[in-house]
């Protein structure tokens, strides 16, 4: 590595050396597209296969999908932008109660409440994001903690709307799947399974787009060095507040789906700080600031306690779960997906098509690298891989 620094810096010398160790996969190339299509087909096949499972198993998977959406929301603000939130249980709850109250008290169609829940949580997220302009690090976490603590109290306080501590029951009749699906009310688990799965895929697509855009670059710049980000012209305040809003909106979407999934809401049920901690745990386990980390994290959070209770029955299982968590964080501080990415990079590197070394070989296939001193032309930018 020091050889790089010792090289003279005054004469630009383009090189034709390999871009990276191992195999190189060009983003947008036939091979890369093929792998992407294969991956998508595999996911669809797995979902179709899972939809033949018993309803109980499908319900568990629905729970995983919903949790993955919630963690994907948290990932934007905590993973990519570096603002630790332990108040996301409040957005999860706000989304759930928006759906619950609108369906039960105002007779809304359950699916129509989802955009309302997303909108409410977006606005709430903007408001909770405001303190992040002045407060940093653990102090900001404390502010979000207060929001998380306050939410169940607010639900109890407005009991004429929310049913208070007694809870809010959404009757199965109100959650009947639309007629065109041909799914009966008793089978509504299948409907929710597909709705959650599609919602998760859509959320992951949007997050992927965002994190690859220059807006995503600005988010990571704010996380890595706020002062330097501002010096580059990043509007730090706008990035933080909008990310908070977007993050809350996505977690709120998860909450709305969760309300339909459980059908009964109670302030002490799934909307306390424990939920926030579950989301943060899932994020760290799966891999913060990775696209698929939230999915792996959700699987871990749902199934690990179940597994440890098989190995160590009774109260010991909680301890076993804790020990497992500590071990995982020690062994893989980057999370499962982060660790997998590092391992994968040793085997294959995905490179964008605009890399100058590739542009050169494209113009001069098989030939020697160009002589020193020549300015490289603009690389072809038409192959830029951006999902639609």
């Amino acid at each position, binding site marked *: 590595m020091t050889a790089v620094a010792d090289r003279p810096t005054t004469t630009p010398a383009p090189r034709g050396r390999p871009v990276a160790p191992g195999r190189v996969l060009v983003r947008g190339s036939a091979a890369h597209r093929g792998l992407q299509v294969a991956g998508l087909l595999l996911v669809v096949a797995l979902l179709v296969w899972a939809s033949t499972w018993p309803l109980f198993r499908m319900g568990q998977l629905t729970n995983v999908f919903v949790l993955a959406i919630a963690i994907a929301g948290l990932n934007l603000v905590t993973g990519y932008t570096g603002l630790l939130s332990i108040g996301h249980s409040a957005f999860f709850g706000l989304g759930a109660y928006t759906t619950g109250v609108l369906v039960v008290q105002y007779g809304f169609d359950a699916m129509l409440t989802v955009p309302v829940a997303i909108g409410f949580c977006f606005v709430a997220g903007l408001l909770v994001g405001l303190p992040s302009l002045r407060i940093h690090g653990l102090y900001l976490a404390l502010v979000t903690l207060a929001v998380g603590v306050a939410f169940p109290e607010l639900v109890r306080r407005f009991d004429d709307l929310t049913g208070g501590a007694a809870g809010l029951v959404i009757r199965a009749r109100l959650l009947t799947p639309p007629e065109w699906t041909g799914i009966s009310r008793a089978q509504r688990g299948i409907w929710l399974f597909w709705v959650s799965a599609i919602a998760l895929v859509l959320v992951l697509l949007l997050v992927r787009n965002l994190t690859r855009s220059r807006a995503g670059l600005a988010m990571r710049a704010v996380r890595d060095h706020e002062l330097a980000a501002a010096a*580059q012209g990043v509007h730090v305040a706008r990035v933080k507040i909008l990310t908070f809003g977007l993050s809350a909106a996505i977690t709120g979407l998860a909450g709305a789906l969760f309300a339909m999934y459980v059908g009964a809401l109670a302030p002490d049920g799934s909307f306390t700080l424990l939920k926030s901690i579950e989301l943060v745990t899932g994020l760290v386990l799966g891999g913060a600031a990775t696209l698929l980390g939230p999915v792996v994290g959700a699987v871990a959070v749902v199934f690990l306690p179940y597994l440890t209770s098989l190995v160590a029955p009774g109260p010991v299982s909680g301890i076993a779960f804790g020990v497992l968590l500590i071990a995982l964080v020690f062994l893989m501080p980057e999370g499962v997906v982060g660790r997998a990415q590092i391992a994968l990079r040793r085997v294959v590197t995905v490179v964008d098509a605009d890399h100058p070394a590739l542009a050169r070989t494209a113009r001069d296939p098989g030939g020697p690298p160009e002589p020193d001193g020549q300015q490289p032309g603009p690389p072809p930018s038409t192959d830029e891989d951006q999902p639609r």
Partner: protein
Amino acid sequence: MPGADAHDPLLEVRGVAVRFGGVTALRDLSFDVRPGEICGLIGPNGAGKTTLFNCITRIYEPAEGSIRFAGRDLLAVPAHRIAGLGIARTFQNLALFGSMTVLDNVLTGAAAQPGTGIVPGLLAWPGATRRTAALRARAWELVEQLELLDVALLPAAGLPFGTRKRVELARALMAEPSLLLLDEPAGGLTHAEVDELGGLLVALRDRFGFAALLVEHHMGLVMGISDRVVAMDFGRRIAAGSPDEVRRDPAVVAAYLGRAA
């Protein structure tokens, strides 16, 4: 710039004073930077050089005085718009985005350019992605020019110091600045690297035509490449002129070596 000719100053600092509680970091400081010139800013530690940088980049608020850039009142511009006006900076102790790749660091230098909206980003609008592709092409060019191609896809945090300095320089150039603020670019470099840096800065200035305000302790570098030098001590300007004039100025000699008893 309508109505501006080469002799109009690009940066006008007039009577700037900064106080932190009882400590006066800058007092009645005035000087100009003309378009395309390298202006050295020297002075012993604590003379207020970095404080001045932080005033120009709107991190500190001067208690008195005015700073104008290309005829515009800089003190009325919020910090995040400074880069968009064409002022880029490097930091004394490096301020890279450590977890991001070298290429992404450089690309972030264009954060003031339009196309960073969250909604276009979420939906991958063709307009936004086209603009990103064009900026990436520019970022790749800078990466090549500053000899960073081999490390372009590595995270910035693990790179050697000299390499990271070049990353920061490339990031600053990405903003297409008309004024480049360089805060001790030679700090921590070996003797050979400092010589290279001097040549590189002059070559880049000739190529891109920016003016540079160069804060530096390394006298060889400042005196070697500056068109003009401003010397400061205790927050005041004590001398200004060509490198030779400033080098011989008794006030400068006294500030660095102490007064004869």
